[in-house]
């Protein structure tokens, strides 16, 4: 019994450490998104926002669904950009409970969810972006 437990613990540790820097969420947004203040002359059109649950396997090493907020923030369309972006990643009580309960040993290795959301303002701007030079 103790041998089986040790083997299981070793397997879990090995799986967790085998892949480094894998539990990362890339917060990808549409082109020319302004994360801070909006550029001068940009006019706010409407507020947008979304929140969704991201699901991972093996304590975050493998995603069940797509990473980050890529599929949360939709492109606002031509001539429009997102500004004043705020991103929130939450490990809430639901994520906590499902991380513990489903597994016989420790659920986090089977289902590791996180709630990710964003808020932003869609703006219209007449000026085009000029690529920075080196």
């Amino acid at each position, binding site marked *: 019994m103790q041998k089986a437990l040790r083997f299981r613990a070793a397997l*879990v*540790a090995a799986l*967790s*450490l085998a892949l*480094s*820097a894998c*539990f*990362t*969420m*890339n*917060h990808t*947004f549409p*082109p*020319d*998104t*302004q*994360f*801070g*203040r909006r*550029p*001068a*002359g940009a006019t706010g059109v409407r507020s947008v926002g979304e929140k969704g649950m991201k699901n991972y396997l093996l*304590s*975050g090493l493998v995603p069940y669904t797509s990473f*980050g907020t890529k599929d949360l923030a939709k492109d606002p369309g031509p001539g429009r950009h997102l500004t004043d*972006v*705020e*991103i*929130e*990643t*939450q*490990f*809430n*009580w639901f*994520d*906590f*409970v499902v991380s*513990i309960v489903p597994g016989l040993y*420790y659920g*986090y290795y089977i289902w590791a969810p996180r709630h990710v959301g964003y808020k932003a303002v869609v703006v219209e*701007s007449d*000026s*085009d*972006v*000029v*690529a*920075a*030079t*080196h």
Partner: protein
Amino acid sequence: MTRRSRLLALALLLPTFGSGCFTVQHAYHGDKLLTNGAGLDRPTKVVRHFEAHDRQFFWIHGGIPTGKPLNGLALAAEQAGPHPGVVNLRLKEGQSFGDLFITHVPCILGIVCGTWSTWVEGDVVEYATPVAGR
């Protein structure tokens, strides 16, 4: 139930009583321009490329975070220094090899404690032509 089991059960349940157990908010309301685009609305030149990382330590499944809150956008704005903004900004968060090791080994699968990280990468830019009045 033994004293050890009761302590373990308490450690597991504690975060469920807190709302939003471990929450990371990326937001910036200062005067720097932060964008994932290639430039700003006026010609700019790249001053330097940067990659920055910040880590937060928490107790009991994230229920008790310690230190300065993680905020990737504020971290990127700090990198801008005296310059007006950052372009080609990439933002991600999660657990690196170090975070995984800390969380799963000494922190006993995150039950006792753990760490969470954020990474930002981008180009600090300066206006190619000086802004009037500066």
